[in-house]
């Protein structure tokens, strides 16, 4: 079965083997996000998550930037400004990351080049983050009178608070290297030379795709769910996810294929029902 992806302008959707690719595609604008691109993200995540052939999703950018936040040209030029987003923001009704969209499949963010400001949404909300050796991270919000909030709130759960706060308060006057991001655990792998980023991401995604989709989805729910609660409550909720897999065919297939020294045949991922 092959799924046709929706036609998008600011994003590219592709499948290579078991890997679904979501590629920011406004390279001449450093992949800055317009209102239209924001809406395309909502559609794109759902499309990849629903494709039964996709086991793992990789998100990256075309050109010399991964992403650089909101398109300020659009904000500055059309007289509406950020007000267009007021209602959705006040209600936290936003849909441009995998986490916002409840994506069940593993998501790898592969940071090529610049990652600035709002781009941290996709670092904070991915399961795994890798970066090209020439990637640079900074958050210019406060240098242009804007507040740093949601993306940094996500980041402080995944890496040391101080580094995130420093980036937030220093603004555009300092950049973090891929090396420092690696030391701090913001990313787990540096790809050098940078041109190899997509190959390495594909390979990592294919490796992950060898694992049980159902077990990974439940693991992902347990770990992200744990971000919502204190430790004991998180473990209680995690126990439910654990038990939910008992009796699932993958739980027998895994050990059996291991004993038989062959690749396991997993049950296909179930498309989310919401």
């Amino acid at each position, binding site marked *: 079965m092959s799924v046709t992806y929706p036609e998008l302008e600011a994003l590219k959707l592709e499948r290579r083997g078991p890997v679904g690719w979501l590629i920011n595609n406004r390279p001449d604008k450093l992949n800055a996000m317009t209102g239209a691109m924001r809406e395309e993200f909502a559609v794109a995540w759902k499309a990849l998550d629903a494709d039964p052939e996709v086991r793992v999703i990789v998100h990256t950018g075309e050109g010399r930037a991964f992403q650089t936040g909101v398109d300020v040209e659009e904000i500055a030029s059309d007289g509406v400004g950020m007000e267009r*987003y007021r209602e959705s923001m006040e209600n936290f009704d936003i849909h441009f990351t995998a986490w916002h969209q409840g994506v069940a499949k593993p998501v790898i963010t592969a940071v090529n080049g610049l990652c600035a400001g709002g781009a941290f949404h996709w670092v904070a909300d991915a399961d795994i983050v890798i970066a090209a050796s020439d990637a640079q991270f900074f958050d210019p919000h406060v*240098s242009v009178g804007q507040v740093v*909030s949601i993306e940094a*709130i996500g980041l*402080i759960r995944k890496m*040391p608070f*101080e580094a995130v*706060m420093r980036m937030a308060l*220093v603004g555009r006057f300092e950049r973090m290297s891929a090396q420092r991001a690696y030391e*701090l655990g913001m990313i787990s792998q540096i790809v050098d030379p940078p041109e190899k980023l997509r190959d390495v991401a594909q390979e990592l995604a294919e490796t992950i795709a060898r694992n049980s989709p159902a077990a990974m989805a439940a693991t992902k729910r347990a770990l992200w769910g744990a971000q919502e609660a204190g430790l004991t409550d998180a473990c209680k909720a995690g126990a439910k996810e654990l038990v939910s897999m008992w009796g699932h065919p993958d739980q027998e297939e895994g050990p059996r294929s291991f004993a038989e020294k062959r690749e396991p045949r997993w049950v296909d991922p179930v498309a989310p029902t919401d």
Partner: protein
Amino acid sequence: MSLRTDYETLVVERRGPVGWLIFNRPDRRNAMDATMLDELEQAWTELDDDPDVRVIVNTGNGPAFQTGLDVVQLAKNKEALREQSRRTKRAELMFTPWHLDVITPVICAVNGVCAGGGLHFVADADIVIASSSARFTDPHVSVGQVSAFETIALARRAEFEPIMRMALLGRSETITPERAYQLGIVSQVVDPPDGLRDAAQALAETIARNSPTAMAVSKRALWRALEMGLTDACRTGARDLAGVWGHPDQEEGPLAFAERRDPVWKALDRERVGPRYRSTDDEGERA
């Protein structure tokens, strides 16, 4: 605005846009006696209320940064610290920027030994830098005391295991500035050590170029996020974000950038920033 000059245990001064709060009991390794505890509350508040102070730097005079409660005073004159014991019991301490809801960005510049209660100031700062002669240690359990507030906050800022190890090993364990940098407890190590204050002033002046309002709201959003689950924190943070849309700095920033000049920011209006960031008890008040 001119700052008070009559502190006994602190030096409080302003250099350009940077307010300095300096522990000044070098012969006692800057340990906190009852007077210092009172003066800290006054000094943080004074600096935070001064519109000319855009960023605060906290450091110590002498070879030590801060070594916690003055145990000599505790042993000789328990009465003097009775008020602090009462506050400790109720978790109502009032001597760090976090205790006092300081909204100005705070840089902690660790100049030497930072021991026990001194870790409060590392745990409760926004940014922490250290000289290469800094040392972090938590001797509480080696002298029969419990380590709690400081290490709880540190364990949220960095990896848990090194903090638990430091708490359990007591005086036998020391974290070097290099290790603190690896762990993300500090973001900069200054070598040679006597360059620390210049480095802190330079960093503070850089930060002072950013919008005071945007920084205050960002700071508040990130600290408040430590009180909540992820989704609730993002929901609250989203309201903080939209709450400043329409503020003049939001237009001035991009405009100044386009015109290649330094932006002219509005003075911080505390009403705009919202209530305290320490707890979520005031949620109703905000809505």
